[in-house]
């Protein structure tokens, strides 16, 4: 049985990774799961300087999911290089760095600082809905997507994955623009924009009013988008959006995803990542799947 997958030339022991922003750099979850069991850890967004993020409340629960408006709070790339890379390198797993910025210059600053660092892949975050500049504002316009990806690609010494926003009319257009800009792979979906109002206080629950929705409730939207994108482009896709277990993950693989990320499910079950790995292995044994390529993208 072979659970290995190849993402842009990097071999992962299995397709299961973490969705950026839900797993920190793995430290917190290492109390609950053996990080050696994961295909990769996709770390929380890293900017060129420390970011404060947005005021609280940043979290709201909604039916079958949650909203967040964290706003990419992070201690910056220098801190990441000094503290998080050495931590993660103790484990036999791949490191994927999610790169965020308010401007093309800030994105390229991070990527330049990561040159020569011991990480495996880069994930360009042009899809966060919780920042006023950069983030999703870059990821919803095809011309802008192509331009940002081109500029970042010039300074990247690792394969570049571009993370897409679902808050667009036609995600395949954005996917094609990213690939035409030089993306080596794509990951999707980031959160769907959403809102919740406290009717007793007569005000939004989130301080920033609007946030990003995630969790099991968004999964059908994510499966649909992964399916469409896999049909439209010819680069590896990492699928995510509401994946809580192996069954969910296998849906994404059948829709065409090479990798799968566990996000909000980590908050609900700290062992969701490892249980997904085990569940995929069990499915493969039970249904005689020798290699994941046998089921990848089998939906016509």
């Amino acid at each position, binding site marked *: 049985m072979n659970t290995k997958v190849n993402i842009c030339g990097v071999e992962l022991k299995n397709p299961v990774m973490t969705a950026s922003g839900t*797993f920190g750099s793995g430290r*917190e979850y290492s109390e609950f799961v053996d990080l050696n069991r994961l295909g990769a850890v996709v770390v929380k967004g890293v900017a060129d300087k420390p970011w404060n993020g947005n005021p609280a409340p940043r*979290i709201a*629960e909604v039916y079958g999911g*949650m909203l967040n408006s*964290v706003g990419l709070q992070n201690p910056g790339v220098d801190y990441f290089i000094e503290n998080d890379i050495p931590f993660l390198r103790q484990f036999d797993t791949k490191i994927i760095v999610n790169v965020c910025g308010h401007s093309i210059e800030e994105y390229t600053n991070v990527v330049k600082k990561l040159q020569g660092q011991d990480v495996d892949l880069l994930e360009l975050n042009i899809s966060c809905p919780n920042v006023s500049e950069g983030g999703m504002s870059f990821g919803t316009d095809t011309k802008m997507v192509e331009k940002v990806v081109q500029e970042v690609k010039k300074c990247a010494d690792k394969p570049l994955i571009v993370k897409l926003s679902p808050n667009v009319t036609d995600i395949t257009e954005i996917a094609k623009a990213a690939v035409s800009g030089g993306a080596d792979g794509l990951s999707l979906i980031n959160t769907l924009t959403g809102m919740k109002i406290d009717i007793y206080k007569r005000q939004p629950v989130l301080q920033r009013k609007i946030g990003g929705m995630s969790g*099991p409730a968004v999964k059908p939207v994510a499966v649909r988008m992964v399916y469409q994108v896999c049909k439209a482009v010819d680069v590896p896709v990492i699928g995510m959006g509401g994946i809580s277990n192996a069954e969910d993950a296998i849906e994404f693989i059948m829709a065409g995803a090479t990798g799968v990320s566990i996000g909000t499910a*980590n*908050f609900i079950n*700290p062992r969701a990542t490892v249980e997904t790995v085990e569940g995929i292995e069990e499915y493969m044994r039970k249904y005689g799947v020798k290699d994941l390529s046998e089921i990848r993208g089998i939906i016509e």
Partner: protein
Amino acid sequence: MKSVEMAKVLSIGFLNDSICDLKILCPKIAKEAKAGQFVEVYPDNGENLLSRPISICEIDKEVGSIRLVFQVVGKGTKLFSRLKVNDEIRVLGPCGNGYNLKGGKSVLVGGGIGVPPLIETCKQLEGEKIVVLGFRSGSFLVDEFEKLGAKVYVATDDGSVGFKGNVVELLKSENIVGDNIYSCGPKVMLKFLSMYAQEKNIDCQVSMEERMACGIGACVGCVVQIKDGDGWVYKKVCKDGPVFDSKEVCW
């Protein structure tokens, strides 16, 4: 080290209309737990996915149990309040830093649902203990503090029990001072308590709360502004807190 355990309900009751008193068996969590820490309790009902942070009221290391006293406010806590003896519930913990217990004369100040974590704190503190509790109306857990040998003062907004007013007004009117203050309650109470502590030059630990998702420091949802040099940084209530030095908090 934190654990996730399926905790068995040992007893369940109510202290009044909305305050539930739940004792659960979770030996791994109980073994590690400290005063002022909290646990995350999962509704596991398919609709409410996020765990509910609930402060630890008492720890019984011998039995391997913890006691949770919480207010029934929403769907999650309502579900917990309907548990029966021997039911199981998924719990993660212990979370957060807890109080830094020191010697000398201790003043414990609790407001509303911030009162329960002070029980374990009061149990573990040695020396003279003064407990000042504030409620909107009525009171709960007062006799338990008295049994622990503390001198207890109560304030209520409506004057139904004890002093009519808030806890800080009560502290002032009785001129209550000590070497350390341990507190938990609504942010506005903690803010005025912090000013009182500064005036009287007493070290004051405040236990904060904020909406959180993971409870272990990964989601970065539950932040509070904490002073940092000339500026401030956002720190996580669940991991860096919930207990902070009152002088560090940007009120």
